[in-house]
């Protein structure tokens, strides 16, 4: 069923109308509307209430052969569009001046940005007002009728494949569009209204400050930048250009910790106040990753990616080449920053894949363990006790896809036969479901007020109070 019919049906069922018999101006003008078998003299003008851009608006409508036509003047006013008349032709232009629709009473043919198109029902002139098929005109002006609702938007939702969602301090969602020609990050409102936030590709994967007001990112030269997530203003932080990865903010938002060096061999932080970089650990162990810092900054946990060992004879002959991968894998380490002369401590020994390291408020650390050689198919959430002596399964009854400590809570994305689920996980391992869908969820973010944003099959979904809204299509 076409959207226009759905809209017509929904509006017809929702609207309480005041009606009036109207003479037909089109008839007076001598137009013959073949599609309009209903006698124009019998057309009733009905006031209908619809939502445009979140605001309730009353529009005059007429129904022709069960197709609801809207007053062009009312519709244009609601959408912020302008109308110009030239002889019998009317040209409607959207508020941004991006699109123009040219039409006339009694003619099914119309033009969108100079391209010919056809209405199902020709525009009708009734009581001196022109009535048009709303969906065709809204679409042509770059707007949208939300599927399954009577809600209209003056600007249509973005369409495409999106990723890397986050919330800013104002509660807007920021996402990057993957299928755009160049990197583009958009700010989305709760109704799907969008504006370009940034075209700086380095922002993708930026790390948010605890209060969501600022995101930190690096560029191809290793320089560190901060962006105000509200107004998009970028400023450079310091002059250090060493390679920096895995940025993470301190709980008070005053420092950014990171893995440093071309072999990712150090851990350091930069002070937001002084822009000075301070080395925290330089033990010559290479390939560190995912550093996490405790709220009191007395403890770090991080991954070390242990490589295999390749050996050859002095001549480097092919025959002599051997590689030992028996110890290759990711291991978890901790470092007690609060203790003088403390050395890194290796907390794990197994060769499973370890992902998504989180340091919890009680000093314990959680990570996702996936074992390609294991007996079970799923990935489990493991917990390393605060003293580092015990590793246990925290969640093992679902396939854990990702996990993150957010606002002091441990939240996981998991999959089972019923689809994807977002759970809050208690220290006991008890799960509380926050959201569930049969769609494939790849990424998620949580706002402080509990609002969730998800990427489902590339689309951005906002979940507020259990109600989900597709912010993109």
């Amino acid at each position, binding site marked *: 069923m076409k959207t226009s019919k759905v809209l017509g049906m929904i509006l017809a069922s929702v609207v309480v109308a005041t009606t009036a018999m109207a003479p037909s101006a089109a008839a007076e003008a001598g137009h013959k509307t073949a599609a309009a078998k209903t006698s124009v003299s019998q057309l009733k003008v009905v006031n209908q209430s619809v939502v445009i851009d979140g605001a309730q608006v009353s529009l005059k409508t007429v129904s022709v052969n069960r197709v609801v036509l809207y007053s062009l003047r009312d519709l244009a006013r609601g959408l912020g569009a302008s109308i110009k008349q030239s002889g019998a032709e009317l040209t409607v232009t959207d508020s941004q001046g991006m699109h123009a629709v040219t039409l006339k009473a009694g003619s099914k043919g119309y033009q969108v940005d100079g391209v010919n198109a056809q209405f199902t029902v020709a525009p009708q002139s009734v009581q001196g007002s022109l009535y048009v098929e709303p969906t065709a005109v809204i679409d042509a002006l770059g707007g949208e009728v939300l599927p399954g609702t009577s809600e209209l938007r003056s600007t249509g939702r973005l369409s495409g494949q999106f990723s890397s969602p986050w919330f800013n301090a104002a509660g807007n969602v920021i996402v990057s569009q993957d299928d755009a020609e160049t990197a583009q990050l958009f700010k989305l409102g709760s109704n799907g209204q969008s504006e370009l936030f940034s075209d700086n590709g380095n922002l993708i994967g930026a790390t948010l400050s605890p209060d969501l007001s600022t995101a930190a990112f690096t560029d191809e030269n290793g320089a560190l930048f901060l962006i105000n997530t509200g107004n998009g203003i970028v400023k450079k932080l310091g002059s250090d250009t060493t390679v920096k990865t895995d940025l993470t903010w301190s709980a008070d938002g005053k420092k950014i910790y990171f893995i440093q060096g071309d072999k990712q061999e150090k851990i350091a932080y930069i002070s937001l106040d002084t822009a000075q970089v301070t080395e925290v650990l330089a033990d010559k162990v290479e390939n560190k990753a995912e550093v996490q810092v405790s709220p009191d900054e007395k403890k770090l946990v991080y991954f070390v990616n242990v490589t*295999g060992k390749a050996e050859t004879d002095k001549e480097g002959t092919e025959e002599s080449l051997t590689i030992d991968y028996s110890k290759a894998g990711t291991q978890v380490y901790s470092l007690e920053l609060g203790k003088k002369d403390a050395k890194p401590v290796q907390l794990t020994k197994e060769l499973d*894949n370890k992902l998504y390291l989180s340091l919890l408020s009680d000093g314990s650390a959680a990570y996702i363990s996936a074992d390609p050689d294991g007996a079970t198919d799923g990935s489990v959430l493991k917990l390393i006790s605060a003293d580092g002596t015990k590793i246990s399964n925290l969640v093992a009854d679902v396939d854990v*896809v990702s996990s993150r400590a957010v606002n002091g809570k441990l939240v996981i994305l998991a999959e089972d036969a019923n689809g994807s689920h977002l759970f809050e996980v208690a220290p006991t391992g008890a799960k509380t479901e926050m959201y569930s869908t049969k*769609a494939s969820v790849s990424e998620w973010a949580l706002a402080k007020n509990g609002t969730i944003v998800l990427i489902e*099959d590339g689309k951005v979904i906002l979940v507020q109070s259990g109600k989900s809204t597709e912010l993109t299509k």
Partner: protein
Amino acid sequence: MNWLKKLSLVAVASAVLLSTTISGSAWAKDDLKGKITVNGSTALLPLTLQAAKEFQKLHPKVKIAASGKGSVTGPQAVKKGIAQIGACDWDASTDVPGFKAFDGQVANKVAVIPFATIVNKSVSVDNLTTEQLKGIFAGKITNWKEVGGDDEDIVVITRSFGSGTRVNYQAKALGGGDIVKKEKNYKEVGSSGDMKTAVATTPNAIGYIDLTYISGKDIKAVKHNGVEASVENVINGKYKIWSYGYYMTKGQPTGATKAFIEYVQSKKFQEGSLKKLKFIPISAMK
């Protein structure tokens, strides 16, 4: 758990499920599994490890183990069947000076790697021509004063035979010239990291390294034929000492190996993490 408690939990779970919206889209579980081993270029090792970290978040059941021992060991390991991917700083499916082509292997471009001549901070020279570099690495120019510097012996640091950095440096910085072993003021090192350390800690030393490794105050890059070693000059064609980095595979890659290589070649990785590790995306050279 007693039946009443069970029933309550089921009821709560149902209520939660009912309150959510069910999308019509199909839910697809990621079933990609496998083990991928990557050996070869130490220059490409940080890129491989970063990509592995990101790829495993998308495909947690894929195990990726990496090692670095110089470019030639990449295609060698693939030929011997002890690695699925051979990371190599040259296209090892073709002949290059010093190395025959590895038949049956496919070269998958993954990055652009700029290289630079580096000197110890004690060296006052900031530009060297191809001819001067040829003379230095052939052992014919042995004192910095011969190329406009101080009256100090030149200490040559070079990568071991089989290094991709060495193959590319000889071909592009030395114009095909040789690196001649000397009795004194000469040292061979086995990795990019060792090169950086050796030049940084040896007064009057000269060496060569991937641009990404250049940092700190103890080493500095020198211009080549008057052109600064920079990403910008590689992309605009002025600076010639660079090569593609390749993932060599035995025939066309399949399964998890294919998926991993495609991830490394994806716009997301190339324009994101790869650039932040100071490599150049392959698309930049088109």
